[in-house]
């Protein structure tokens, strides 16, 4: 193992490592899907920077070019609106991309418009050095993919069952604020055999430029991420975790170690960092992990797992 990696491992292991749904992570911070998620070289760098786990960009069976730019832009409030259109290199090219992966804890995010698309994708990835899959059922701005699937309980159930029968690796279902209650969809996912839930994806949103009077995103409507959605993320994690008892990975506007701790108290066993990377760079992984560590020490705790869901009792 790379020297620096080894040092990070040892340093963090006892206090910070978390396990959920059969995944062992050296610390609770993961890269959120869609951020820097297409290059093995970048994954290696992220791992060196301290990421506990890495979720790839959502991969579809065929390559997708996505929408024209603007596909993502920033708001004053440390938030983004994006409609990338699930641009991704496709399962074939991406499996080649990560074929050389050795010790980076990669979780492959998959997206599809019907249960039949998943087995052939799984086949390409299952033999590689990856931890498991995250299934994106919650992209709010691509027709017939993501949220349109996630808002259809029967489809959710069918997809999970199909995937489960094609792999032994853990599968995580990523949910969001669509037009079916997030707890209800998580329940459907749990019943169908999901090992964990990631909550939440971006929230359907838009912005209009008042000078040209035109929508900014090429796709007009996109998804809101970043600080703005944090309280909605915390609520979703709290409700899913408290009501269903399934392991949850928190996501949505986590910018500081305090945010990460808040999600963990709400019930998240791990947290995903997305938008923060645009505002604070890759060092967010180190800063947040260090902050969590100090907090745990100050509170006299022996493991990050101890704070997961603590807010449920009040």
């Amino acid at each position: 193992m790379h020297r620096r990696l080894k040092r990070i491992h040892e340093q963090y292991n006892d206090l910070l490592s978390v396990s959920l749904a059969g995944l062992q992570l050296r610390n609770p911070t993961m890269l959120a899907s869609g951020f820097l998620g297409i290059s093995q070289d970048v994954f290696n760098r992220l791992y060196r920077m301290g990421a506990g786990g890495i979720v790839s960009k959502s991969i579809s069976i065929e390559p997708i070019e996505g929408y024209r730019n603007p596909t993502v832009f920033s708001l004053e409030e440390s938030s983004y609106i994006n409609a990338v259109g699930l641009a991704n290199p496709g399962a074939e090219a991406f499996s080649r991309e990560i074929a050389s992966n050795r010790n980076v804890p990669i979780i492959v995010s998959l997206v599809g418009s019907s249960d039949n698309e998943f087995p052939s994708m799984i086949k390409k990835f299952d033999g590689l050095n990856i931890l498991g899959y995250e299934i994106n059922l919650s992209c709010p701005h691509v027709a017939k993919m993501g949220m349109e699937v996630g808002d259809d309980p029967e489809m959710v159930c069918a997809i999970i069952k199909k995937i489960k029968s094609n792999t032994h690796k853990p599968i995580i279902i990523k949910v969001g604020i669509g037009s079916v209650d997030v707890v209800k969809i998580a329940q459907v996912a749990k019943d169908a055999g999901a090992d964990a839930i990631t909550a939440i994806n971006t929230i359907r949103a838009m912005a209009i430029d008042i000078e040209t009077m035109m929508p900014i995103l090429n796709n007009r409507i996109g998804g809101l991420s970043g600080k703005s959605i944090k309280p909605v993320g915390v609520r979703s994690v709290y409700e899913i975790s408290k009501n269903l008892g399934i392991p949850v990975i928190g996501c949505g506007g986590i910018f500081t170690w305090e945010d990460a701790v808040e999600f963990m108290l709400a019930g998240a066993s791990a947290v995903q960092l997305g938008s923060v990377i645009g505002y604070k760079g890759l060092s967010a992984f180190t800063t947040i992990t260090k902050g969590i560590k100090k907090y745990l020490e100050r509170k006299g705790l022996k493991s990050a797992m101890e704070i997961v869901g603590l807010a449920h009792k009040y």
Partner: protein
Amino acid sequence: MPTNIDRIRSIVIEQIIEETPTVKTFVFKDEISSKAKPGQFLMVWIPRVEELPMSVMVSDKKGYAAITIRKHGFGSTALFNKRLGDLLGVRGPYGNQFKIDKESKKALLVGGGTGLVPLMRLTITLNQLNIDTTVIIGAKSKEEMFFEKQANDFLDKTKHNVIISTEDGTYGVRGYATDVMSIIVNKDKFDTVYTCGPELMMKKVVDIGLANSLSIQASLERYMKCGVGICASCCIGDQLVCKDGTVFNEKQLSTMIDFGRMYRDKSGRKVNFHM
């Protein structure tokens, strides 16, 4: 007006300069862009059409900046066809900048096409630092050559030399800019070469530079979506061109195995440069 560089700022095209039949410079008022560093770029919004990364060109008016557009495909053609008074949006400037060694005595700039834009901003700084500067401008033909006057003007206070090379020999030296470079690096003692232009040209500049033990600063171009280091569509190796770049030095460049060989398309797949 938002001061946050990430917000899209509305700008008005106040002046249009036709550099060549296929290249125009748009001048606009924007305090933030006017302070861009050499090597930095803007994300330029062409409403309802596209958003494209564009290097920040110099304007001589205070509080103004410019972009220089080469009419190429879908987005750049729509941009090229904009008129005086039309609205665009800009965010940025983004990216790092050309680093100038304080010890530097003699600089060589090699550019082609709109790659000259960041080099123009750079000449202003070199002029201020009084560094002896040679600029090689490469173009296909006399008709497609631009920025010769600007280069001479911007370098007015320092010793300088602007060399033109055209592939068809209709102006200046016949041949590629890199041919000229090969010759003059043997005659003169440069310490640093700064380059921006087509990647295959830059690849050659880097090879010549490395062979001659020059310091190298190259400003790369990759397909960009976000411009702020979150999408990785611009990555080369583990570097994000929009955030870690656009300017890389000889050490970084020599370990970039994809430099001059492969780039990623809009879907993120790696593809070869068409040779």
